[in-house]
């Protein structure tokens, strides 16, 4: 088992980073009813961990007995019926799905599936209290507008039987209607000190000797992503132990690759080079690295190498093409357009500076 999973706090009491929020959540479920919840915050900040711990708090250890199931729903969409296949994680009391996996059918997923689930009230073995089910929805921010609208309706209609826990990265993309019906919980990314603390805690548990400043260095590289910090910590452990204070922290392969692309771009600006870059971008896409992450990383790498005057222009075009990428279908077209634009800007900059 990976350390990320091994040292994931199982209960709200054990939560290390967001202990204050955890305590409040505990109060919330023990003292009164639980409203619909919306967790938002950047990736790797601990939303899922909190949710799992919260479920355990609500339902006891039974919440951890989950089974994975591929379910197919037949949905009547106007003139024809569509089959929607989704993977669910289920326990007796909760179900977790990622409706955005259904792509353009997400509207039907939300309308029908959730309705369906909410209708089937859980059977309580003790026969007392109707009880309710908890539905965990991942990536609500990736749901289309329509889907969010119908989600809102479902929340109102079935609130007696079903509580929703929504989870997303950015709450900007969640409609006001949904936000106002949920208790919003912002989960910020842990600070670097907090990450270092966690790493040292894990090190102690594993009986490892950590040179001073080693944990801090991993934390620094993790971009405030706790999951990533723990993962690279473990990689370091596998690659070299005992640790040395100078030990290199292995970067992600795709990040290195992008930095390679960035230096390629800086070295030569020509259609031929653009074509080579395209090949490399394809490679990344094949490995399912999301295009916006590629673009962001590329911008990061370019910004590191540039003079201040050009940085503004790079930002401008990056945001411009990122937006167009969302509107379009084929990400490569837009990333490539960005690269081409950068090349053209950089080339004229070089000519202006060095003649």
């Amino acid at each position, binding site marked *: *088992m*990976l350390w990320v*999973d091994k040292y*994931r706090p199982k209960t709200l009491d054990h939560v290390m980073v967001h202990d204050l929020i955890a305590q409040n959540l505990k109060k919330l479920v023990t003292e009164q009813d639980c409203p619909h919840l919306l967790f938002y915050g950047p*990736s790797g900040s601990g939303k*899922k961990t909190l*949710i*799992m711990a919260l479920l355990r708090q609500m339902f006891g250890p039974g919440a*951890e007995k*989950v*089974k*994975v199931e591929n379910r197919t729903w037949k949905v009547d969409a106007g003139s024809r019926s*569509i089959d929607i296949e989704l*993977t669910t*994680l289920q326990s007796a009391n909760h179900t977790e799905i*990622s409706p955005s996996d259904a792509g*353009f*059918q997400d509207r039907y997923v939300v309308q029908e599936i959730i309705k369906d689930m909410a209708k089937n009230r859980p059977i309580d073995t003790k026969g007392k209290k109707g009880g309710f089910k908890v539905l965990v929805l*991942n990536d609500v921010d990736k749901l289309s507008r329509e889907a969010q609208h119908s989600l809102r309706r479902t929340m109102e209609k079935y609130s007696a039987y079903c509580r929703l826990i929504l989870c997303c990265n950015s709450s900007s993309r969640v409609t006001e209607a949904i936000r106002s019906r949920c208790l919003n919980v912002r989960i910020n990314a842990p600070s670097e000190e907090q990450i270092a603390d966690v790493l040292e805690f894990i090190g102690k548990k594993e009986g490892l000797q950590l040179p001073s400043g080693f944990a801090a260095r991993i934390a620094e590289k993790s971009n405030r992503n706790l*999951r*990533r910090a723990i*993962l690279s910590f*473990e*990689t370091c452990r*596998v*690659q070299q132990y005992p640790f040395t204070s100078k030990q290199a922290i292995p970067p*992600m*392969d795709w990040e290195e690759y992008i930095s390679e692309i960035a230096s390629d771009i800086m070295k030569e*600006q*020509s*259609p*031929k080079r*653009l*074509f080579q870059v*395209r*090949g490399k971008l*394809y*490679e990344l*896409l*094949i*490995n*399912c*690295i*999301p295009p916006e*992450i590629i673009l962001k990383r590329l911008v990061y790498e370019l910004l590191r190498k540039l003079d201040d005057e050009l940085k503004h222009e790079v930002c401008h075009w990056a945001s411009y*093409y990122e937006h*167009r990428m969302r*509107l*379009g*279908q084929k990400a*490569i*077209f*837009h990333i*490539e*357009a960005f690269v*081409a*634009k950068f*090349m*053209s800007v950089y*080339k004229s900059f070089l000519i202006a500076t060095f003649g």
Partner: protein
Amino acid sequence: MSKRNNVVLLSSDDDDGSINRSLSSNHCYKTKPKLKNSTTSRRLKKPRLSTSQTRFSILHQINLLDEDFNEMFTGSKVSPDTQRSSTLEQWVDKYKPCSLEELAVHKKKVEEVKSWFEERLKASKGVYKNNVLVISGQAGVGKSAAIHVIASHLGAAVCGWNTPTPVLWQEHLYNSGAGAQYTSKLDEFENFVERIRKYGIISTSFTGESKPSAILLIDDLPMTNGKAAFGRLKDCLQLLVYSTQIPTAILFTDYGNTDSADYNARCLEELQLSLESSGACKVAFNPITTNSIKKTLFRICQMEHRDVSADHVDNIAKASGGDIRHAITSLQFFCLKPNQVHSLSLFTHSPGVLKDECNKPVRSNDGYYLHYGRDETLSLFHALGKFLHNKRETQSSIEYDQDSFLIQERFSRLPLKMDVPEKILCQSHAQPGLVTGFLHENVLDFLDDEAIDDAWTLSSYLGDADILLAKLRGMLSSDSDTGSVLQSAAASVAVRGVLFGNSQPLSSRWHTIRRPQLWHVEKASLHKKNEMLRLRFPACKCLSSYHISVMATEYMPISKLLGNRACGVYHEPHQELLKNMDMEDVGFDQMSLYEQLETSDDDIEDW
């Protein structure tokens, strides 16, 4: 004419019966039956060579037994057609050339073919090793007409193989109930060739005459599907070339203009090559010149006592693209017009426009033209080549008058040396997504090494096209109108963007056009994604699930470093995957088909 056919049918000519029946079953092609009737009637005079007697005799029985069935097909449905056709014979048949002079084919070619046959007919057996002549040419250039005329000129009989009308599958099912075996056309053809080789032409109908010289004519070859059948056909033809004693003409219809991706066209080409290599002579017929078409048309007009203006004939001749059969049919169609006066008056209107710019009459009345224009198709690759090479005039021919608005120099481009891009697109029948993909893949090759600005402009426009195409995703299928408008808009933006963006087109260099890698990439990444989805739950030990991007950016790289310790079995370098994909692309021509399939898959997925 068809009436005669019906009689024939009852007098137990079962062969034609079957044709007649299939004719009637696809009687919606109003003009075709007439054409075919003529060929069948012509064939009556020829010796019956068809070998699949069993099938036909059973068919015949069925015909006799099942009168209702017959009546339904031949009686009630064909007769309305036949009524008309008897009053209005196809001019193509009526004015079939009867003498060498009447042939519109170029004199030299005719002479060449004639002398070839003459030599072989005169010579005694075994003098010439190669007794096969391959004649190729696009449809309607008079290949078979030439043979017939030459044969009658030389006093030889033409006997031959015409592709029999295929048996419809339903029909076969019907027959097989009565115990008939299904024989494919290929089988029949093989049998036919076998017989020719062994016995020459043994004809019952020529018994009265003193052994006439004969020419064997093999018109359209049987269609083949798949490699095995094609191989058989090839072997069979080669055998024929090696061993036949009778002068034989094999006609190939070129589909020069159509999609080169068409599998059949490719096969035919290969067949021709193999025939030539085994010793057959080859004559290629060019499309008939406009002048000789015009001559023929005028002759017909005269004989029909129709008064058709010279302009008109000129237009028809030009529009036919060298296809004389088409030209004659067009002429007939034109003369058919009930309100000829009206249409002529229409026409006299448009010359009003013509007077001003006489030098381009073809353009000005495009719409009118379409009535008898041939549908010109372009291959996708041809079209792409045009766009990518971006040929332009060397200098702007348009003078600036006060009407044309001024464009900044950096936005102005020299005039294109091609049709309107949209027209080319339309002719190539390509899907916008496909065009955009191909352009994206290949366009960088056609750019100057210094022209990174152009590359940016181009890719930005391609991005625009992509956004337009993406708008389709959310749309309901009922909005197909909006959809198709968007589609063509997207294609237009892509093409014009590429044309505009490439501001200094390179002088023509030869480039292969690659297929878009994009499809590979998408497929591979989808594959990968599914892989990860499968791993997702085991990876996080069933407590919760990670989002796919987290899997891709964090788990996968780490698990590689950790050496598969954690994430179960994860190893599949995508290079391997790509290799597999490459094996899939068997041939260039099948590829585009494959891709079209893929696009449709893609669409389905989007729904």
